[in-house]
């Protein structure tokens, strides 16, 4: 069913007479974090660092992922890696405990994951994903940041696509979705292949058309069974050549990791056929002039997040402003 969606009225992107581009940008602005929120995220990072230093004295954190690239949405997690020093198993556990103590009592430590990580959710509802010495992810982030600076359209498209995945409950690779890393390389590869390699400027293209073409490409045109994508050059490499042919599941998505050529970023997306179907559906949807915008919507989950964040900010405010607000809320209650 995907996520539960909300019907919002009088939102900027629904105004009459907007161009397609303006509409999408307005939507994007709506789902991007506000300044207050970005500040809060920074603060959260600082908090994280101080807490971790309680157990690992000279801990240094490195942000990667969307926050580093600059494509943060309100729904994005904070991805952060403990850059130095290298810590042992017990210290990792102790880091978990300290985070449990201060930030989230239910913080989970996944010690047996490929990249050991701590998952937690801050009181504001923002998720934090802490990994240990995750150089590769940091380098990936650097690479994508550089790409984004060169082609800003990449960032905007990526944000829209991430939201698109979120609405459809496809953002989690473990539950049959697609990882954001794979998605970003799908986008880069496609941009390279269709535009930059041919010398076409992607920036001037109408964004609705870009999205439609992207969906169509990955939903219909790409032959998952046979090829591997080499994103940065937009090249198509046969799976046989790379030796990545999986006989059990021949149609897995394969993307060569630019950081490590032997790594296949796409192989975790075990339900690619479902994602493909979702791509096709949206590609068709975007063609219709009447209803194309129903491709995007605000979910109830975002609303929850927003409420939670608002609560945190409000308590902070009321603490600053003293106790006046207490009596006010009492009155309100009595009135209601």
């Amino acid at each position: 069913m995907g996520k539960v969606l909300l019907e919002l009225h009088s939102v900027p992107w629904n105004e009459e007479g907007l161009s397609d581009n303006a509409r999408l940008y307005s939507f994007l602005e709506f789902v991007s974090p506000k300044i207050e929120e970005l500040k809060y995220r920074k603060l959260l990072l600082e908090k994280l660092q101080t807490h971790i230093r309680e157990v690992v004295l000279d801990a240094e954190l490195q942000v990667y992922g969307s926050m580093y690239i600059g494509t943060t949405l309100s729904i994005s997690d904070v991805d952060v890696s403990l850059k130095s020093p290298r810590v042992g198993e017990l210290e990792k556990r102790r880091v978990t405990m300290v985070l449990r103590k201060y930030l989230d009592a239910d913080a989970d430590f996944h010690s047996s994951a490929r990249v050991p990580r701590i998952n937690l959710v801050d009181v504001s509802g923002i998720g934090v994903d802490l990994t240990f010495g995750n150089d590769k992810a940091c380098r990936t982030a650097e690479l994508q940041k550089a790409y984004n600076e060169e082609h800003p359209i990449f960032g905007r498209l990526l944000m829209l696509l991430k939201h698109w995945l979120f609405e459809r409950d496809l953002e989690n690779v473990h539950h049959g979705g697609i990882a954001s890393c794979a998605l970003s390389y799908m986008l880069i590869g496609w941009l390279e292949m269709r535009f930059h390699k041919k010398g076409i400027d992607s920036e001037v293209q109408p964004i609705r058309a870009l999205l439609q073409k992207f969906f169509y490409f990955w939903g219909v045109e790409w032959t998952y069974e046979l090829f591997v994508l080499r994103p940065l050059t937009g090249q198509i490499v046969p799976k046989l050549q790379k030796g990545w042919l999986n006989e059990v599941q021949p149609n897995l998505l394969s993307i060569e990791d630019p950081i490590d050529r032997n790594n296949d970023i796409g192989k975790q997306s075990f339900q690619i056929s479902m994602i493909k179907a979702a791509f096709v559906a949206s590609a068709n949807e975007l063609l219709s002039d009447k209803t194309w915008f129903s491709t995007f919507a605000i979910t109830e989950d975002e609303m929850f997040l927003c409420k939670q964040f608002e609560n945190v900010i409000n308590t902070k405010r009321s603490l600053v402003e003293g106790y006046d607000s207490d009596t006010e809320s009492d009155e309100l209650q009595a009135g209601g």
Partner: protein
Amino acid sequence: MAVSLNDFISVKLKRYSRESPWERLRVPYRNKKQKKWASVHNNEAQLHSANKRNDNCLIQRSSTWRLGDMITLVIKDIPVTWLSNEGGKLYNLWEPLHDYGTIEFMKINEPLNGQTSTTAIVQFAPPPKVPFWEPNGKINVKGVDLAVQIDITAHRSHISRQVFSKNSFRSDQLVKIPLSSFKLGQVYDERIVPLFGVDCGITVTESNLLVYFNFKKLCVLFDASFDKQIETFRLDFDFHSIIGDVGTDYYDDHISLVFRFRFSPLIFRKSKNATESRVQTFWTASHLWRRHYDILPFNVSPTTASPIELLNCHNAPIGRCNVLVLSFSIRDESDKDDIAFLLHNLEKFNLKSQLDKVVFHLVPDYKHRCSLINDKEIEEEIAYLLQACLSKNLLSEIDLPIILANLKKLSKERAKKFLRLILTSKTALINPSELDFTKSFVFYDLSSASSIHIKKLYVTPTTLRIVEDSLEAGNRVIRNFKDFANRFMRVQITDEYYKQKIRGGSDGFRNEKLYSRIQQLLTYGIKVGNQIYEFLAFGNSQLREHGAYFFASGSDLNAKQIREWMGDFSEINSVSKYAARMGQCFSTTKEINRFCVDISLQDDIVRNNHCFTDGVGMASLSVIRRLSLEVKNHDMFPSAFQFRMGGYKGVLSLAPPTKLEYHQGNLVFPRRSQDKFKSFHSTLEVIKISRFSNAHLNMQLITLLEGLGVEKTVFLELTRSQLSKMNESINSKQKSILMLRDNVDEYHSTLIIADFIQAGFLERDDAFTENLLNLYYEWVLRLIKEKQKVSVPKGAYLLGVADETGTLKGHYDDAVLSVPEIFIQITDTSTSFGSYSTGKLKTRVIVGLCIVARNPSLHPGDVRVCKAVRCDELMHLKNVIVFPTTGDRSIPAMCSGGDLDGDEYTVIWDQRLLPKIVNYPPLLESSPKKSIDFLEGKPLIDSVKEFFVNYIKYDSLGLISNAWKAWAHDHDNNPEGIFGNVCLELAEMHSKAVDFAKSGVACKMQAKYHPKRYPDFMQKTKTRSFRSETAVGKIFRYAARFQRESGRPATYNPIMNTVYDPCMKLPRFKTEYLNVAEEVKKHYDNDLRSIMARFDISTEYEVYTAFILFKDDLAKTVNEYGLREEVSFQFDLLKKKYTQEYLEKCALSNQSAFDSSEYEERINSAVAATYDVTYDQRVKSVGNGTTEVLISFPYLFSSRLCQLSRKAMLTANNF
């Protein structure tokens, strides 16, 4: 400013879902993973098998055995004579070999026919340091040369285990890490007061932590050195007794882990001599561990000649500890890894680790502080309550000086209230200030005239758990000595997990020390406050629970006088009978006020040495009418009831109305078989009255019926239809009502739920009704899964009585196929549309073949096929099963030796369940009943005490019935199932074990009856289980799958959205009663919370319906039936009290003050007011977010509420 999502927060928004056709391609993640794994696994398996051959070669090189963590030796040429009774068996091997290393396991094989020698296996873990069998591979034991060989095949599986680091040991299932130190103590205000491990006269030399993940327990193993000797002890902590998270504290060179626990650990002392191996052919190292109740060396006798106390200042107070601190020293990285591994695995069991600061707080004068409890100035009641608080760790003995000083300042009433308040609170009051004692508080006391407060106490091996008061309906003794009621005490002997019995072993070795503590308890009593409670007597069902009554004797009354008052038992010459007859006075009964009956003793109907009226007599119509008024029975006029009257016990049924002489006055016609002892009491006391409830199959019955030839599919069909009916009824009001009416439970809760639904509460999204229904689903599903309690719509569970008219045809031995007749007339719950609350019930007579069984039935002959007939002479008997009094043998006796003194029978007339093998010969009592005689030259009561200890020691009822279950389903080892010899013998043993309480003859289960493996539905550890293909196994798996896959949420939802019921708007006087309602609700909530706290029940719905969902860890240990009965009893009292109180306070208890229509309307308004108050509180609580509100109060007035709703619906329809 731009619009953002914040602007929509308080706006009511429409929600919708996107059509997502791609979703149908979604594959559940779990399945996918398994599939992938399976395909990879196959390849790997092939690779492995190729490698294994190489392994073999490697291991065969000599001295590789040193590398493993275990070695198995095969010892050959053992003379057969060792296996004889006096031959010494395994002890011959243990004695010479145990010096070389730690023997983990030994087994001696049964010799094949005609052979003079046999082989044995001895396993060392770790391997011995010296290869004592080298160089020839021979050892000499008792002058016999034995050949020794290393068993390589046994070896390999262990070598593949992971063994890490030089000091510690870890595998998936076991972690063993040396401890630098450990301390047991009490949590005191965020600090830890060490009570054991330091300064207690015992030096701990070497300690280790062992964690068995597969058994979910954590053991601390240590050597304690006393003056000269060193003894090894072990403390076992179950994971489920650990509360909260694991605290960790880290320093440079060591790390401490802190575990808080609810129940004291089990203490074991390692015996130095493997004495059991003399009699066994199978021995493991675990046999060396003996239970203990204190850390004391073997030869010191801890049983002092003093009563048992809560704060015992003589020994190490293990029972007073609630926290364990383990310290490990960190020398290198691998040590760190071990701890990380341990923490990682503990997290899998939901024991999360947290940062913690370990601060010790030394109390040097701990023993002195404990001794303060004997303060003579403290009033008795207060001392008792104080100790109850201490035993629940709500107050700490460390604060005793402050507490006592302050309590003395308070008035007696206030001090009592203060302590009662603490008992109902959830958090401990530590280091109280004077202010805590003087600040004002509100407290309501639950008291009711019809019930009596009795003290209750659990004795566990290490400590006492004092329950403040338990409300009891009362019994003859306590009613008579009402003025002394506060000096009676119910004592129950349990294991540390205090709802579990102490398990009697088949060998007396292991728990010897525990029995000596029980002996001490019985001889010297218990000291609570300044009173010493001494043994009085025990009731029959109490004995099964290992409980007894104690009494604090004084100069005015002592236990001996009470026993003398109970009656004249001098004619009884058997200890067990003597005890049972005394126990008869302790049955929970209800006295019928000022009601004298005339007794006219009748002869039993006896033929062929069989008594056909064993335990059943008659009563006249007027007696029964009086009774039905007294008991306020909601059902129809009762036909029979279980009673006590002086020395009489049993059942009285309504005498045939056709004979006038039976009904002239208040007449009771007891039988001689009901007369148990001489007594001058003649008041009639009632235990229970006959009422209808639905029949259920259970595991035993299904097993028997399947064995007797009923198709497997029938049982599955019944289960399936019950579950699918449940599922269907989710969406249909009528279906759910029908389903609830078809499955009447003992406390008639389903009928109440059905009434609520009928009245339309569910349609109006009433949270309470919805939760009740969800709870019911969950409860049924669990029962089916765990006990295979499948409801049979065509069946009933009824009290048995005898046919006084002699019209029914009985069982005849010489008939070709004897099918005796029975008579059943039951309430028709399904067709009579007049609901439970209106009281208009119809009945119908069952006709046709049916099966009759009694619980527990294990023998194939226990299930009888009878023919239900219509019999005009018996139409006056309803909701009972009437057995014939003619024929050669009595039918109840054939149903696992039942009688008619209150036994209930399951009767099923579903033709599909009729067995193919009809009326298998019943179990005959082979040996004449023996009985134990009184000890010579000692008071009679001493023999009773000894019998009590023996009963606990040899109580193997549970063991036998479990063994039977396992054997009956294990068709590989016992192909004949229930007809196999093992099962028949076990069934016979079971019936003897049931009689243990009466006959005094213990039934010891021999080792050969221990099951080889267990069917999966018994939910033992995986390695010992097999997949059972019988009906029971199928039902278990079906229900388990249903539970996993059904769309319903697995747990019912205690917090739901609040919707106001429009029906409650109407009544006009509502506002007048709002204040009263609020006040009474406050009191009621308080009492309800204390019931929930006392029985460890998490929601009010469970209390309201007595469908109690036990937490997983307790599910198997508690006596579910007893607990439910107690909860339902207590709630009934509460219900009565508060409905009455509320109406009184609303000035509505007296109808005559108003004209009838106004009275009706006022009552309705008052009830609606309770609803309004509750609703308001809920809305507020949702607004505040946190506090939990109890909402059952309005639903106490269930029938009024339904009436109100129906009325409102009618009005709504008219407009």
